[in-house]
Structure formats: structure tokens, C-alpha cells
């Protein structure tokens, strides 16, 4: 292969700009248009699904993205994988901005940035065999010749714990957990450097969920792939991620290394989120934790509150919160919080495990 205009090196990978992180999101925003009610659709409104997100992922690192429905975590996933074109901001992959690249120029990047979907039922074409599903990725990127395709597909199936002889079966012949493995094999086919996993285990039963998580964990360790891991289950994210970012209404409100975020969360929303998780440890004699109950619902992203977006549900809110939008500042080593009154909780929010 030869070097092309978009910085593809002789080995077929994207050449990294000196010193650039693997992935960097810079003031990323995605506003969707909703048609207005009136005549001639006047009063067109914009849903600010993602509004000014800054995140960095280094090679081999896993970044967790948590938040509730409508916080923009899935939109962020679709932006990183460029299934959406952002309204504003930069998506830098190894230093190259891919935010507005054309489909043709994106292709080499698509090879290195892969996506695993939540729903193992709708994300696999029911009329294609497993071999075709996984093989398409190989063919599209011209990774193997015709003779090498089947052995490589079988190798990939084996890698994700499926029987390699099942390459000619259809998705409906597999269970939910097995289908999710097919989706993972498809993502691995192009040997990506980063995988965006959007709720990869949420649709699975508890025992199957643990199987798939162990598989992802092993693949990550063996292949050194970086992950952006999106989930609403805080336990799952904690298990899998080095660093965690909490999103609320299109913004990152707190970002910290895993232990800092779970043990000393500083943003009131992070604290409320953690305290709302039902904890099984209670029955094993661990004292029940203090609860913070949020009142009401998330405001509409069409017309988010002025200043801090969380202030309408925040028990710490004062006048300044409505006037000045708190920046995402470093409040502790490597821990960034967007709050005027950020402080760690008085006592641990997650139940302490007795030694």
C-alpha cells in the first residue's frame, strides 16, 4: 500500500501526529433540528444533544461514559464513529480532525475506529450469514484475499468464543449473548485501535452479561485496544474502565480516574447518580448508604437551563449557578468537575465493604 493524502502510512494505518493522543474531542457539539409548530415551520428549534464536549482517550485506555437517557452519550458514540457529522467542534484521531471528512476520505479511519451496538438483534442483518457479516468488514477494507477470508473469519469467531464451524449460520440461530459476540467479532475484524461500545451488555441477562464482559476484558488486555465504553450501569462501567466521564444534558459534568469518581465524586449529579444505585451489599450486613433523591426530570435539551444545566434539580444551587456556566476545571489531581460548589461527599456514597 502507498501513502495517501489523508496521512495513511505504508503499513496501512493512520500515521500519528507527533504527541497527539489517540482520540481527542474538542468542544464537540451536535444539534438536531426539530421542525417548529407554526406556519412555514417557523420557530424551528434545535435539540442540543451534545453541546461542548471535551474528552481525551489515550492508546489502550478505557474511558467510561455514563449518564441517563438523553444526556448525549449515544450521540457522542455516533460522533466519534462519524455516523453523524458534528455541528461544531473537532474529532481528532491521532491528531487528524475527522469531523467533516467525506465518506471516501473517512474509510481508512473507519477501519481503526469500530463500534459495538447495544441491540444484538437489530444490529445484524438477518439475511446474511455470520461469515458474510464478519467477512464484509474484511472485504471492504481489503484486508485479506479471497482465499484467506474464510480462515480469518473462523479465527475471529474462535477469538470471541463461538464455534468456527458456525460461519454459515444466520443470526437467528444464535442466542442474544452469542449475537453480541458476532458483533464483537465484526468490530475486531479490521484490527481497530479504538472500539466505541454503546451499551454492549445492557440487553443481556445477568449471567450472559458477565460472560461478554469477561470476553471484552480479555480482548482488551490481549490486543491493547482502547475503548470508549458507554453504559448506564455504574457497576459495569466501574468494572471495565480506567477513567469515567459523567454526562448530563449534553455536557460532561465530571471526569476522573475510576477510584476517584466512585469514592470521592465531587459533582452533585455524580453523587446523586451513585447514591441511586440499588446496592446488594445491604443484605450482607453493610450499613445502608445515605441516599440523595433527585426531584423531577431532566429538562428538555431544546431549551436547557441557563448557566449550570443541573441547577434546576440541584440542592446546592444558588444565584451564581443560573448566571455563570461552571467550566470543567481540575479540582483534584486528574479530576475535572464542572460545578461552582464541587466538593467530595462527607461520607462515602457507595457502601464500604467490611474488611
Amino acid at each position, binding site marked *: 500500500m502507498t501513502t495517501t493524502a489523508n496521512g495513511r502510512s505504508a503499513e496501512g494505518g493512520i500515521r500519528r501526529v507527533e504527541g497527539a493522543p489517540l482520540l481527542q474531542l474538542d468542544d464537540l457539539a451536535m444539534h438536531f433540528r426539530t421542525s417548529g409548530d407554526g406556519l412555514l415551520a417557523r420557530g424551528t428549534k434545535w435539540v442540543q444533544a451534545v453541546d461542548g464536549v471535551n474528552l481525551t482517550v489515550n492508546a489502550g485506555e478505557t474511558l467510561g461514559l455514563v449518564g441517563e*437517557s438523553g444526556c448525549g452519550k449515544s450521540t457522542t458514540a455516533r460522533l466519534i464513529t462519524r455516523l453523524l457529522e458534528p455541528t461544531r467542534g473537532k474529532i481528532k484521531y491521532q491528531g487528524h480532525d475527522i469531523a467533516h471528512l467525506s465518506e471516501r476520505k473517512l474509510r481508512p479511519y473507519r477501519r481503526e475506529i469500530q463500534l459495538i451496538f447495544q441491540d444484538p438483534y437489530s444490529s445484524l442483518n438477518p439475511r446474511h450469514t455470520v461469515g458474510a457479516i464478519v467477512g464484509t468488514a474484511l472485504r471492504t477494507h481489503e484486508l485479506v484475499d479471497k482465499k484467506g477470508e474464510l480462515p480469518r473469519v473462523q479465527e475471529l469467531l474462535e477469538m470471541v468464543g463461538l464455534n468456527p464451524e458456525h460461519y454459515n449460520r444466520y443470526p437467528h440461530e444464535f442466542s442474544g449473548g452469542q449475537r453480541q459476540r458476532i458483533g464483537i467479532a465484526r468490530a475486531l475484524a479490521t484490527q481497530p485501535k479504538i472500539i466505541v461500545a454503546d451499551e454492549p451488555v445492557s440487553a443481556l441477562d*445477568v449471567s450472559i452479561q*458477565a460472560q461478554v464482559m469477561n470476553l471484552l476484558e480479555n480482548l482488551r488486555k490481549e490486543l491493547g485496544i482502547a475503548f470508549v465504553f458507554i453504559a448506564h450501569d455504574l457497576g459495569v462501567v466501574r*468494572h471495565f474502565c480506567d477513567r469515567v466521564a459523567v454526562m448530563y444534558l449534553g455536557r460532561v459534568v465530571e471526569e476522573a480516574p475510576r477510584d476517584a469518581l466512585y469514592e470521592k465524586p465531587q459533582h452533585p449529579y455524580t453523587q446523586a447518580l451513585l447514591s441511586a444505585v440499588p446496592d*446488594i451489599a445491604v443484605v450482607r450486613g453493610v450499613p445502608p448508604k445515605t*441516599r440523595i433523591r433527585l*426531584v423531577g426530570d431532566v429538562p428538555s435539551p431544546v431549551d436547557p437551563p441557563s448557566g449550570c444545566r443541573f441547577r434546576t434539580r440541584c440542592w446546592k444551587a444558588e444565584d451564581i449557578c443560573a448566571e455563570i456556566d461552571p467550566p470543567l476545571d481540575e479540582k483534584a489531581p486528574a479530576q475535572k468537575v464542572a460545578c461552582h460548589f464541587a466538593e467530595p461527599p462527607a461520607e462515602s456514597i457507595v457502601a464500604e465493604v467490611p474488611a
Partner: protein
Amino acid sequence: MSDQSIRAPQTVTRTARARGLNEEAYLQVTDLQVQFPTADGMVKAVQGLSYSLPLGRTLAIVGESGSGKSVSSMAVMGLHDAKTARISGSIKVGGREIVGLSEKDLENYRGKDSAMIFQDPQSSLHPYFTIGDQITEAYRTHNKVSRSKAKARAIEMLDRVGIPNPRRRIDNYPHEFSGGMRQRAMIAMALVNDPKLLIADEPTTALDVTVQAQILDLIADLQRDFGSAVVFITHDLGVVAEIADDILVMYAGNAIEHGPVDKILGQPLHPYSWGLLESIPALAGEPQPLHPIPGTPPSLLAVPSGCAFHPRCEFRDRVPGDLCTTLKPDLIPRTADPGRTSRCHLKDPDQIFRSEILPRLP
């Protein structure tokens, strides 16, 4: 802007209630079997389920997809179509037999003595009618009252489940409510006739965690006020630990473990329960590798012989001979703990849990 005041964080602690002396069962399920004939054979969805539940207590039924937890509860509500489901055994609600009731009698029973909250409030509320229409209809079906009286009752219920400004919101359509509010509206509709038995089928699974916490608090509050018996179907053991008094673990149509929640979650005796606990990542402590249950749940068309869990059980070799593959164990007490039973051939599950499973748990 929002018409809700912002409250300071509340502190709520919930401790398991002691068993009262007045333990007369309101719901009594005995040897319930539910089967569905299909072109591929008989689907044995529930096989010989028995449990009882007194007023004022919450029973959590836990299990994975296809374990029979929803099918058995729909039988309690009389929701199975007699043309497609074969139901045998007995379900007594307040002394009245439900199995075999005519459709007319069932209509009278459903929504009055017992009510159900479903997982997905989006699809359980009719999009074409206002919230108020749907709640008043539920009320007027069982009570001969005027429209205005029924409306007053609906407003009262919406207020009770914490919907702000109920007088105005009663004329809204379901799509004008958020997910959490819709679930509240559905709870209001379920409780409008003061049912003594409430079945909640994964009522918080579709909700976000902060909203889930609100709804769990609400259900616990309402139960305290109304004194009803609650069957809570879920797959989330954390939710069970928060809300339930008793727990029934189901696997492939069978109850495999039953008893007080602190005992079953604190010291489970069935290898399947162990596997569930070891599959849940913890919120504190150094993350441990998960020990998932190998394999997948069996097809209900061909439930394994003997103990249905034996193909996935890692402790099968601790049982002498081929007992696990040939003989289905009974659901009987295995320890001195009162009121708990499990379905397993292991001689000393207590010992195995303490020495092998507990150290691995996060």
C-alpha cells in the same frame, strides 16, 4: 420552568421487616403449571410453582429471560388466553380460585382485587386517550360513580403518586409525560381501585437509575399505606435487596430457591444463585474478575432431565452418582433457617458457599 421545588437530599434507610404473627396468605399459588402447545412441541414455561404471600409483604421473583417469572405472574392476573395456554394447579387470591374462572369473572377480578404494573409504560398506556380518561375508565369499570366523581378520584391518585399539578396534567396524553411520570401514572391507574395484590413486572427496568430510585421509594411508600401484597418481578438483585421481604429465584420454569431476602442474598444455597451473585460487578473495592455461569439457559421445549440447571452447574461432581441428571431435587429446607427452601442435591451447600463462593464475592 419546573413547578417542583428542590428538596434537600433525604436520608432513607430500609430494613427488612420481621415476620409478623398474622401470616395468613392472601395469595396462595399451589403446584402451578403453565404450558404452551406450539408446532415444535410443548413449551413448559412454569413447572409446579408453589408459594404464598401475606398482605403487607413484598415477594421478589428473580430469574433470567425464560425462567417463567412473568408467565407465572400473568397467570396470577388471569391474563393468559385460555386458547393458547394450558394452566393447571391452583392460584388462590383472598381465598378465591383464579384458575378456571370465566372471562366475565376474570374481568371483575382484574384491576379490582389485583392489579399489575408493566415494564414499559410507553406501550401499556393507550396513546390516543388522555391519562385522565384511562384512569377514570379503570375506576368506573369497578365502581358505579359519576364521571366527575371518577375524575376527582383520578386527580387524587395522580397527586398521591407524586405527579405535580395533577389537575392540569390529568388532561395530558401519555406522550406529554416523561418516562418516570408515565410509570407513576400507570401506578396510579393500578392502585385506583385499592387492590390488595399488586404485581409489578420489571417496573423500573426501562427507567434511569435516579428515576428508578424515585419509583422504588414510591412503591414502598404506597405499600406501607395500602397494606397490599406486592409481587415484584425483576432481574436486578440490587433492587431486590432494597425492596423485597422474600425472594423466589426461578430457573427454567422451576423455583430453585425461596426464603427471606437477607438469607437468600446473604447466604444462598443454590449454585445458580451463587452464579448470579458472582456475575454482578461491585461498586466498591478492587474489581474482581467475574465468574459467570457457563453456557446459556435451556430451551423450554426440552428442559434438561433431573435438575434443570445440571448442564451449567460447576458443582455437579460433588453429588455422588448421576443424581443430578436423573432425579429432579425437591424444593425443601436444607438448613435450620426457618422459611427457606432450595432445590439442589448438594449435601453441604452452606459449607461450599462459605469456603469457596464468599471469598470470591466482591
